[in-house]
């Protein structure tokens, strides 16, 4: 177990973290970026990003890889580990991870992003990757001519639900309310798609199947009637939550566990910043997250210069 010293430790390799890394490394700060999964975060699962200014259309994974190479070319290091905790040590921060070494940073920028919500029903976790999916663009191709359920009523549910209809024979949207939250244009597309049907006021109580999904157990929230629906896939899009567990008790948070920061992405803890989807009121776009990351890196640079001048 060794301790390694950095100027800036960045937690999370989505657009916010990669942009922060670029500015931190170009600012001649010794910088490490920690990523627990796939660099790019949510965009690495996006088929096409079409709203990042200056880039008409790009595969999300490719965009993330380009950002990573750009940041690394200026000296940013990348480590594939999960962050376990952050604590103050003197005027610096100690970051513990699933890796062997502990990292010390003069400043820490948390860009840990957000993760999709799970239903929390029996069978869901056991059958993930076996018919339960949180990404239609990744998995829908394996359900050609089979029937699927799409859980949720927002933009993501409609968008991904529409994508599944390229493959599945039928997509039933199961929603706990009697109307959708999704934007009008997506609603109209969904209602017009003949492979899509809608089951209102209904929640999933259990995902059924031994080693593959074979159906779902449903309950109507108005009548309390239960039923079973045979199908092969359950695509779940019921919102997301910030990856902020390791910030709890350390910084102020809103009710949704987003970190509260000022316009420079600073928490009330000196040298601890938060940017992108993990912070309160994020616009949750690639472009806004990049802006957040850049702002945080510049703020961290100012902080380090002011605090650690020798």
């Amino acid at each position, binding site marked *: 177990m060794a301790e390694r010293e950095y100027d800036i430790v960045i937690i999370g390799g989505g657009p916010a973290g990669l942009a922060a890394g670029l500015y931190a490394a170009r600012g001649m700060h010794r910088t490490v970026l920690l990523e627990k*999964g*796939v*660099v*790019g975060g949510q965009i*690495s*699962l996006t*088929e096409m990003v079409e709203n990042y200014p200056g880039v008409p259309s790009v*595969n*999300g*994974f490719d965009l993330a890889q380009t950002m990573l190479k750009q940041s690394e070319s200026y000296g940013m290091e990348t480590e*594939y*580990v999960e962050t376990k905790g952050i604590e103050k040590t003197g005027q610096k921060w100690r970051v513990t991870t*699933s890796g062997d070494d502990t990292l010390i940073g003069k400043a820490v920028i948390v860009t840990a992003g957000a993760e999709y919500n799970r239903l929390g029903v029996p069978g869901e976790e056991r059958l*993930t*990757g*076996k*018919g339960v*999916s949180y990404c239609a663009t*990744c*998995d829908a*191709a*394996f*359900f050609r001519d089979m029937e699927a359920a799409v859980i949720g009523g927002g933009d993501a549910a409609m968008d991904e639900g529409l994508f599944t209809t390229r493959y599945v024979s039928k997509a039933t949207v199961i929603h706990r309310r009697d109307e959708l939250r999704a934007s009008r244009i997506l609603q109209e597309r969904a209602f017009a798609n003949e492979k899509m049907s809608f089951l209102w006021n209904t929640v999933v109580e259990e995902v059924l199947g031994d*080693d*593959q*999904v074979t159906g779902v157990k449903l309950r109507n929230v108005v009548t309390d009637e239960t039923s079973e629906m045979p199908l092969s*896939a359950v695509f779940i899009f019921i919102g997301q939550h910030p990856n902020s567990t390791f910030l709890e008790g350390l910084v102020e948070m809103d009710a949704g566990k987003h970190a509260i920061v000022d316009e420079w992405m600073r928490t009330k803890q000196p040298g601890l910043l938060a940017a992108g989807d993990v912070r309160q009121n994020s616009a949750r776009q690639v472009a806004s997250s990049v802006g957040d990351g850049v702002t945080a890196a510049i703020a961290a640079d100012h902080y380090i210069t002011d605090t650690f001048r020798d």
Partner: protein
Amino acid sequence: MAKPTEVTDSDWDTQVLKSDVPVMVDFWAPWCGPCRMVAPLVDELAEEYDGKARFYKLNTDDNMQTASKYGIRSIPTLLVFKGGEMVDQVIGFRPKSDLKKSLDKAFA
């Protein structure tokens, strides 16, 4: 240098099931982002286990028969075989240490 090689529906049995050493198969498709993160990790394992295990890649777009036979419903998925039997699987992108742990079950 040991590198993973392509396997298809037609040579699956001879290459994978009849292998005399443990086998790791990477189920992937060109459109799958996380698959491209797993590939270099499998390349590294292929070097480390040179002579002890064999490594294959199966393109699920072109080889749906094998993919559906093994109930692949999400990629990347890695399957580990020993003596024609599946001994473990890893679904989704995982760090290299997890892949190693899974492969080592074929040597237990």
